[in-house]
């Protein structure tokens, strides 16, 4: 965990006082709504269909137990007893009253949590791999670099009024769990032939109404140059990005219009002028940030302890273990994913009681550390294998041990028309109905890894373009319709899905998805060929023929 200092705490306290005053002035009429709206948005406060929504940043998806407990407290005291984890590793409270928001924010600020950089045309909360610091796959802990970017970008005056919002994601593992190729800037941390750490820099990725996979503009950027190079990118974007049309204002449009080569050339020219300046990261600066990450004092343990071997005789435990437990870099330890997708429940939601349970489990077994993944699940990154059986029993008792991680009913869904003022169609009930079709988890396991992503509008908060099966809600003559795409993926082989055919009605979606999956089961080369690989091998046509013949 990163340890905040007195400066951070004082800054947040001042920020809450400032917002409290702004709310008082708004409620008294001293501020108009036009004056107040940008101020509330800079603190993560949106006005949705039925209520205000508070979006809280979880920097690089890392939380401690006290922070999660405080979120449970906010959910219980100021909201309706639950929170929603989002595809950007944030949490949203959907029912907060404006007059109570300063109190809720003050409670969160006491544990170092806030809504800054969760809204507005600024550099948003930097995201990364939820397994950071724990997975043996990584070459370094990407959170070090995310934290450097956080400190650099927070309230940066030059980048507070960008043409549009700006999202950065970092991965340090070969398998990309952070969807870096569909971010405004994606950073792939790796070592060069000399063993030095650096980033491959991708720009212009993104989803929304004009989706693009990011283009690589630099194969290797030494880590000490991270800030100067990012600043060069931001300056080129700030100077040339369009401000006349909100739909053409993201950096992806600029990169597409002038071409990645010309964009890279402009960045390199800008960078040459600033690379040796104040933004050059010295070893001392990096060491100071690195030193603020306090890693668990792991015990010297062996893999596969007797407690685990014995527990694996229990079929239910063994099923959960195979699905939700992953290899850790330290022997005798594991990474545990907690599914927030119990069949039929709103994806990504956790009740205040469940948050408290996870916080207690993190304290009891996981060095007090919790992660949030962009797949809208939680993670306990540092669990001793000997503790897995007891951890599972307590998760199971709290309804948090559904063994469906990465399966067909581990569905990513935006809030959709049930909450969101921008949505055209519902997403959560569609996810619930599809999940119920595959409620037999033996069947889901037989299907294998399959990511379904649902968005309630073209803004694509549910990342539907990069779902193995993507579902996009649209509105036609006052009715909800859904476009289906196949073959998208968000990992290191990121690509956008291909449209399957005409949009179908709300009622038709679950049956159509079931037909798509059944078609895959018939067409796959064998049990080891994943859905995404069958689509890659055959294209969407065989699916289209089968599915639309039935509908």
């Amino acid at each position, binding site marked *: 965990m990163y340890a905040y200092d007195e400066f951070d705490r004082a800054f947040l306290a001042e920020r809450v006082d400032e917002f409290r005053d702004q709310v008082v002035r708004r409620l008294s009429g001293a501020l108009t709504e036009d004056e107040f709206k940008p101020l509330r948005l800079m603190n993560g406060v949106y006005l949705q269909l039925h209520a205000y929504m508070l979006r809280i940043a979880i920097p690089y998806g890392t939380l401690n137990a006290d922070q999660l407990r405080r979120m449970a407290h906010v959910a219980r005291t100021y909201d309706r007893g639950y929170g929603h984890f989002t595809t950007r590793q944030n949490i949203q409270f959907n029912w907060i009253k404006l007059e109570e928001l300063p109190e809720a924010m003050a409670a969160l600020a006491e544990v170092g949590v806030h809504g800054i950089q969760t809204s507005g045309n600024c550099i948003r909360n930097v995201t990364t791999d939820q397994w950071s610091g724990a997975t043996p796959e990584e070459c370094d802990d990407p959170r070090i670099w995310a934290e450097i970017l956080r400190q650099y970008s927070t309230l940066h005056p030059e980048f507070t009024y960008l043409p549009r919002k700006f999202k950065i994601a970092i991965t340090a593992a070969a398998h990309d769990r952070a969807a870096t190729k569909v971010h405004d800037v994606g950073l792939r941390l790796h070592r060069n032939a000399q063993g030095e750490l650096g980033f491959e820099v991708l720009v212009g990725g993104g989803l929304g109404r004009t989706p693009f996979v990011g283009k690589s503009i630099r194969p290797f950027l030494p880590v000490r140059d991270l800030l100067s190079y990012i600043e060069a990118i931001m300056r080129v974007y700030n100077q040339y990005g369009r401000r006349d049309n909100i739909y053409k204002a993201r950096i992806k449009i600029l990169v597409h219009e002038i071409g990645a080569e010309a964009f890279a050339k402009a960045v390199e020219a800008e960078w040459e002028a600033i690379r040796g300046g104040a933004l050059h990261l010295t070893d001392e600066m990096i060491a100071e940030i690195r030193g603020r990450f306090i890693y668990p004092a792991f015990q010297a343990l062996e893999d596969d302890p007797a407690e685990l071997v014995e527990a694996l005789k229990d079929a239910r435990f063994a099923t959960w273990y195979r699905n939700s437990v992953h290899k850790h870099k330290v022997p005798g330890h594991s990474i545990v994913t907690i599914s927030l997708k119990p069949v039929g429940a709103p994806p990504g939601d956790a*009740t205040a009681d469940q948050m408290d349970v996870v916080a207690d489990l993190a304290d009891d077994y996981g060095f007090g550390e919790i992660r949030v993944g962009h797949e809208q699940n939680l993670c306990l990154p540092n669990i001793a294998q000997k503790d897995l059986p007891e951890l599972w029993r307590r998760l199971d008792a709290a309804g948090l041990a559904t063994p469906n991680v990465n399966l067909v009913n581990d569905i990513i869904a935006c809030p959709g028309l049930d*909450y969101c003022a921008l949505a055209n169609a519902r997403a959560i009930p569609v996810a619930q109905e599809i999940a119920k079709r595959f409620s037999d988890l033996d069947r889901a396991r037989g299907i294998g890894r399959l990511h379904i992503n649902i968005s309630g509008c073209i803004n694509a908060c549910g990342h539907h373009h990069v779902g193995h099966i993507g579902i996009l809600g649209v509105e036609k003559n006052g009715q909800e319709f859904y476009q289906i795409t196949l073959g998208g993926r968000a990992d290191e082989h990121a690509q956008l899905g291909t449209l399957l055919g005409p949009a179908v009605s709300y009622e038709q979606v679950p049956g159509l998805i079931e037909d798509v999956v059944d078609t895959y089961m018939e067409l796959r080369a064998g049990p080891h060929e994943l859905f995404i690989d069958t689509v890659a091998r055959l294209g969407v046509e065989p699916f289209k023929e089968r599915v639309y013949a039935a509908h």
Partner: protein
Amino acid sequence: MAAPQQQKLKVNGPVAVTANRLTDGAVVWRTSGEGWSVDLAEAAIVTTADDAIALLAAAQKRDLDAVGAYVAPVVIEADGSVKPGNLRERIRVAGPTFELPH
């Protein structure tokens, strides 16, 4: 998708003016008494674009009670009761269409 406030006004039947209450964001409806009510039954209903524009303009004069006002379709049932005119407004009135976590 543009929010209703950003869309061109179309009046093809009965409409009302709706907004969110400033203090808590609750859905409110403009009444004929130039106030706001959380009860759609108390909403002022108009059927022409000119009347809708006038109702909206009056609602927007003061932004201390309700914010984000716009014109929304409603349906008048045979018994005279007023219902929301589309799915978005039905959800705003009745809440999410699934059971909330508890």
